[in-house]
């Protein structure tokens, strides 16, 4: 326990709003550097020079300076404990039923696998097959209620974003999940033509992760303000890193922390 880092006197404990002792700190240093190079797709990043041009006269095409102080603040501690432990895989079992056979027949190798974990069934599909599968599930197999669309960010994997669709069938009383994995910058097709409820749910995924959906009628941020710069639920954006620029400009305070 890093007791020594605690202020000894009666000073306000303000600066330590992140748990001091993070068991198994999960942000290895390389993951911090990577995002800056990716230059988030938000078009309105004024002070961030595009990271891609390799030719520029600057000798150090390192992370964009704008992202640096915040990243340093967030990554100061984990840098020491960078050794990323090999993540254990989920102990899922194969899932087989009439439904999986029917889907397998229809989509062939578009569906990567069917598995089951903790009594819940899910399938992994190729990104371009997601909407056709949802459609087939809805039209043929009665999965007429799209419960949720969300995403999980795995920055260390080559395809960092996992989009999860949860569907439910009133007739069969069954709930399944479908997952697709997409690389950075890939735009999956929107599910709005199939399920209207996907509209806001996909907007929220865009808001939080920066995954844009192709063909969405209204691809804007939903919870955060339109001019916000970062995508907060990406793992590289630590909880302390927020859009200070926006906060200072619009709220007139130094920081939102």
């Amino acid at each position, binding site marked *: 326990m890093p007791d020594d880092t605690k202020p*000894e006197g009666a000073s306000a404990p303000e600066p330590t709003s992140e748990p*001091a002792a993070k068991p198994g700190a999960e942000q290895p240093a390389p993951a911090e550097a990577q995002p800056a190079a990716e230059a988030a797709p938000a078009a309105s990043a004024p002070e961030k020079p595009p990271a891609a041009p390799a030719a520029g006269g600057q000798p150090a095409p390192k992370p964009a300076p704008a992202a640096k102080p915040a990243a340093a603040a967030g990554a100061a501690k984990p840098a020491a404990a960078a050794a990323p432990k090999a993540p254990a895989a989920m102990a899922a079992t194969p899932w087989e039923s009439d439904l999986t056979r029917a889907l397998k027949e229809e989509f062939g190798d578009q569906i990567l696998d069917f598995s089951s974990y903790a009594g819940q069934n899910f399938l992994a599909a190729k990104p371009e097959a997601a909407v056709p599968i949802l459609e087939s599930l809805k039209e043929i197999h009665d999965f007429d209620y799209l419960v949720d669309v969300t995403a999980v960010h795995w920055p260390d994997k080559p395809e960092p974003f996992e989009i999860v669709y949860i569907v439910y069938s009133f007739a069969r009383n069954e709930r399944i999940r479908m997952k697709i994995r997409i690389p950075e910058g890939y735009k999956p097709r929107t599910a709005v033509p199939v399920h209207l409820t996907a509209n806001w749910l996909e907007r929220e995924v865009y808001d939080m992760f920066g995954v844009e959906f192709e063909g969405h009628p209204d691809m804007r941020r939903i919870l955060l303000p339109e001019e916000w710069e970062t995508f907060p639920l990406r793992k590289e954006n630590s909880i302390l890193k927020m859009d200070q620029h926006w906060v200072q400009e619009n709220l007139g305070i130094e920081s939102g922390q």
Partner: protein
Amino acid sequence: MKQLLRKVFLADLIEGLRVTFRHQHPKQIVTEQYPQERPKIGERYRGAPRLNINPDNGETLCIACDLCALACPENLIVVGWERNPETKKKELVTFTYDISRCMFCGLCEDACPVDALELTQDFEMASYTREGAILDRQTLENGLLPTRYRF
């Protein structure tokens, strides 16, 4: 027909008004005259924090184990301690508790192995300044002073 009669004679309205007037009876009044009349607070109420002291010798019960600080989701407790050179035991020196960020979830209370930290039934914690919300060891041990209102 019955419907029509009900409509003409405003039966629905009268039924509703009957309920309203029934509640005018003095026995039905439930309003609490708060500052004059103290509300009854549940025994387990999680209100203002207190650091308990041993009633026999006046020493603090806290063993400076820091578990409460680790359990707190808001990370607002700071335990300052030093090792007593003679007994080699940790001794509590300072203890700060920032109620402005506390959400009174009770996790710190649950974590305390010796029941030194306790959330009490005191619910009046308003203060005029933000600094007033940061409680030090002395305040925690003596209990919050009643706020003096500037009328």
